[in-house]
């Protein structure tokens, strides 16, 4: 029961502070799931992101479901999905019912204009922390820069291709290395 409550509150927080969609959820998610609760390490965190953005649907929702399942089975799925959706649901209903001219309210516009650059900085910080933990050798460093170059040079490339090709490259590299080591012996 306690773990269900933790799943719900964590993803409620993540839903409430994902401003701007997509990767904006990463800083809050990393702090809560990796640093505070210790449910995932850096490697598992990035694996999870890989899976959740390869599937259809909102990434934050997919992540809540995947982590909920992993921590507490189907009840965990319900707790995670409900947690991540409720903040949006409440805020948007509030705007739709009471506040149709929200877009003309200056302080709100300024608030979110201030949040945007900070979120970019926080995402950069997460990328740096993750990269440092994961890039443990020359092969992985080369893979990182190769993937980065491809993403920048091929706009509109679907993430799933980067995910599949970096996974396969690692399998081949490891296999050929093992073979080379065996032949050398």
């Amino acid at each position, binding site marked *: 029961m306690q773990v269900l409550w933790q799943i719900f509150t964590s993803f409620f927080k993540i839903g409430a502070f994902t401003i701007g969609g997509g990767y904006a959820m990463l800083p809050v998610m990393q702090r809560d799931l990796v640093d505070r609760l210790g449910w995932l390490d850096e490697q598992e965190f990035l694996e999870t992101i890989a899976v959740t953005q390869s599937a259809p649907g909102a990434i934050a929702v997919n992540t809540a479901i995947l982590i909920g399942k992993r921590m507490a089975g189907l009840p965990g799925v319900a707790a995670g999905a409900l947690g991540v959706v409720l903040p949006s649901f409440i805020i948007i209903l509030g705007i739709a019912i009471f506040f149709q001219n929200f877009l003309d309210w200056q302080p709100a516009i300024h608030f979110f204009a201030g949040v945007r650059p900070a979120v970019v900085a926080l995402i950069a910080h997460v990328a740096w922390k993750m990269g440092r933990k994961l890039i443990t050798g020359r092969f992985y460093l080369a893979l*990182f820069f190769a993937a980065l170059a491809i993403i920048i040079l091929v706009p509109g490339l679907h993430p799933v291709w980067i995910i599949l090709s970096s996974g396969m490259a690692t399998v081949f590299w490891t296999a050929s290395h093992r073979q080379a080591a065996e032949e050398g012996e």
Partner: protein
Amino acid sequence: MLELFITFFKIGALTFGGGYAMIPLMEKEIVAQGWLTQAQFLDIVAIAEMTPGPIAINSATFIGYQHGGILGAAAATFGVVAPSIIIMVIFSHLLARLKASKYSIALKGVGVGVAAMIAAAVFGLIKPAITNFADLAIAVAALTLAITTKLSPIVIILGAGLAGVVLYGLVL
């Protein structure tokens, strides 16, 4: 009500990549249903971008409410989430199988690929998010706080929002 559920189920099942990738299909479905005009749709995207939470959920809740009240909002939101539940439960089994297999080393490379994707996203976000000195100051302050202190990202985000209210509203 059922129509709201079905339309948003379709959107949830067919839009890959999350966030902005979902907008074109959503627009097609919703404008085609005659629920909103193009201009109203763009307003909703603007609201969804400015408020917390995934854009797909925000849009589903807003459009659902306008066409079916609170129940409509619930039907549309559940519709957009339901495909994720089905697909993610299947994916979590596949992930567990891959982890147990001799190819589990692939996941290490996948992690590095995702780190590269996040880094690339940062480069793409810098230009739209940082357009003047106030933006730059907020970004530098946020990064400095994140690196040197243990402050929660939530505190930094709230602080940046307040800085925005002060800098853009009162000073500039």
